[in-house]
């Protein structure tokens, strides 16, 4: 038993971190704020070359690695706020259902087809990054289908929450071409939750780092605000949330790779629940530590806060995740 990152996993994380710092520095990303196409072709290819999409794919295109490595990679992507339908393209490449996904030639998005409402209000169908997509994966209880993105009847969302995640509203999703079974749909949802959890863990750490750095430099009453216990305790709680969620998301990933060590469904639901919570709560604390400036566009805290909400909205709702854990405990 060795639950620390292996040397290879550390090297992988460092490689992705370097790639993000070189290709996706925050100042560059921000030039695309509010655009309808945020994903650029070269950047997407660079991610593919680094193995982000194909690392679990088999055959000649893939590296044949596991969820543990994917979790490590997605944590870094979250930390660096890299935009785009990263998880959907990765899963499409992993399952081999969209040729060109692993190589970064096709940008793949995903959407959940809503179940029949039974007369209750249904949240709108929203597709991320539609303007950049080649293929859209439609996930529903009885399987996975593919729809050509260009055929969708979609309306751009005027003021999307995250300036780096453009959205389209869709009223109806076409039937599409069935490429996966109900079992594969369940697997997609589980793995999407774990990779979204990893993105959230990265966001939670990014916001912790930002808050700590600010608290060390900002002075009031003649000393750094980070010397006040009230501020220290906010930051300590951010670390507890981030480290706990990180351990949970790593354990979920390893449990998917090694199902004999636990219950993948319980581990994934728990990781998603805690990671989304960590990202959202750390967002709140990050802005609190920054004071008034945190509430403005002068500091980038809001970008991380908004991204956390985008990722959390892809997951099953917290109540459903918690009940899943309770039922399987």
């Amino acid at each position, binding site marked *: 038993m060795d639950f620390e990152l292996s040397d290879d996993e550390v090297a992988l994380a460092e490689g992705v971190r370097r790639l993000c710092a070189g290709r996706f520095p925050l100042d560059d990303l921000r030039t695309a704020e509010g655009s309808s196409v945020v994903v650029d072709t070269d950047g997407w290819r660079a991610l593919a070359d680094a193995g982000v999409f194909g690392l679990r794919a088999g055959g000649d295109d893939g590296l044949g690695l596991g969820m543990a490595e994917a979790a490590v990679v997605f944590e870094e992507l979250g930390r660096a706020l890299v935009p785009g339908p990263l998880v959907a393209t990765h899963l499409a490449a992993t399952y081999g259902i969209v040729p060109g996904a692993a190589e970064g030639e096709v940008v793949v998005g995903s959407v959940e087809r809503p179940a029949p409402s039974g007369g209750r209000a249904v949240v709108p169908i929203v597709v991320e990054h539609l303007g950049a997509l080649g293929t859209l994966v439609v996930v529903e209880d009885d399987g996975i289908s593919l729809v050509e993105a260009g055929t969708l009847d979609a309306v751009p969302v005027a003021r999307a929450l995250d300036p780096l995640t453009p959205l389209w509203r869709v009223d109806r999703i076409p039937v599409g071409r069935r490429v996966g079974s109900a079992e594969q749909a369940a697997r997609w949802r589980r793995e999407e939750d774990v990779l979204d959890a990893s993105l959230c863990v990265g966001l939670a750490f990014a916001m912790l780092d930002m808050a700590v750095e600010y608290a060390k430099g900002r002075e009031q009453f003649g000393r750094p605000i980070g010397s006040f216990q009230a501020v220290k305790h906010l930051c300590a709680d951010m670390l507890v949330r981030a480290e706990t969620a990180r351990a949970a998301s790593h354990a979920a990933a390893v449990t998917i790779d090694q199902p004999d060590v636990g219950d993948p469904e319980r581990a994934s639901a728990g*990781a998603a629940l805690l990671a989304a919570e960590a990202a959202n709560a750390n967002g709140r604390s990050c802005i609190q530590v920054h004071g008034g400036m945190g509430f403005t566009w002068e500091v980038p805290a809001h970008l991380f806060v908004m991204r956390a909400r985008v990722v959390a909205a892809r997951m099953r709702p917290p*109540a459903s995740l*918690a*009940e899943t854990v309770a*039922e399987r405990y």
Partner: protein
Amino acid sequence: MDLRYSDAEEAFRAGLRAWLESVLPALGPKPSPFDWPARRAYDTAWQRMLFDAGYAGIDWPVEGGGRGASPVEQLIYLEELERAHAPYVGVNFVGLLHAGPTIVAEGTPEHRARFLPPILRGEEVWCQGFSEPGAGSDLAALRTRAVLDGDDYVVTGSKIWTSHAEVADYCELLVRTGGEDSRHKGITWLAMPMDLPGIEIRPLKTIVGSTEFAELFLDGVRVPAANRIGDENDGWRVTMVTLSFERGTAFVGELLQSMELLRELRALAGRTGAWDDPGVRRRLGHMGAELDALWALTRRNVSQATRTGVPGIGGSVFKLGFSELRQRISELGMDLVGRAGLSWDELPVLDGGPPLANAEIVDVWGNSFSRTIAAGTSQIQRNIVAERILGMPKG
């Protein structure tokens, strides 16, 4: 990252499990928490069984008479003990987890020969004399005075939160040998026999009604200078050395016990109908996710300790998260048993069915208040996390 145990680790587990299955039935029922002599007898008998089977001082280095087990083996050891509902260290806590390892690291060969074997065999019980009424979170403010007079230190002062004082043979005592304001630089570590004249013990009753710890009043107690571990005025460092023995396994038993408690609460909710309430299911599920995460964090800390010799940053993070989670679980327990939780004793249910185990739930709840206070309050832990891990400036 690998959560599978190696063949050697599984073999260690299998041997331990078989041994536990063979000996535990002979151990007899646990004594009343109010009967200290019986608790001492029970805990020390168990320690003797561990010693005879080669499991005593599992985490102690071999040169101290321990087994020198790897951090992962320690984890498995605690996991199997909890799984088998074996006793934990009980009154042997201070000797096995603190005083003993300190003497292993800092004692002379004579100290080791005198003090270590009786701890491992369950023959001598230790208590801890660190905190004082005026030195709690700020331990370096301690004022119990020791003055060298011939071959003895003459000790006068008072100590508090001394667990197992009534049944202890020795006390690991921190005393002021330097000047009044010498703080960390004027403290000395003494092994004080508890039968010396001038020691008065006043038990403190906790909110759950038992006397888990006591106040010690020391009036001119003559402790042989030969019982000093380490140099005079070097006691702070001597004390801190022991912390380096921590391998991230300090709360493993309690964490696993909390997981079992949550499963019991789930079953209880099923019996009372509370499970039909989605709010209850979500509280249970959330706490389950947190326990799973802390179990993952434990295995991470143990893995770090295996590689580096120390558990890294995880210990304080774990302590903070676990203490508060344990309190929330205990609140859920009280919410679930309702009026059945209004007594420390088991109250029968109306339909004549099996009891709701409310006594255990009430006991866990009552004891949970100490979680965020003992072994460093959560407020102090947050300062430590912020300053030592996040590098924030001292106030």
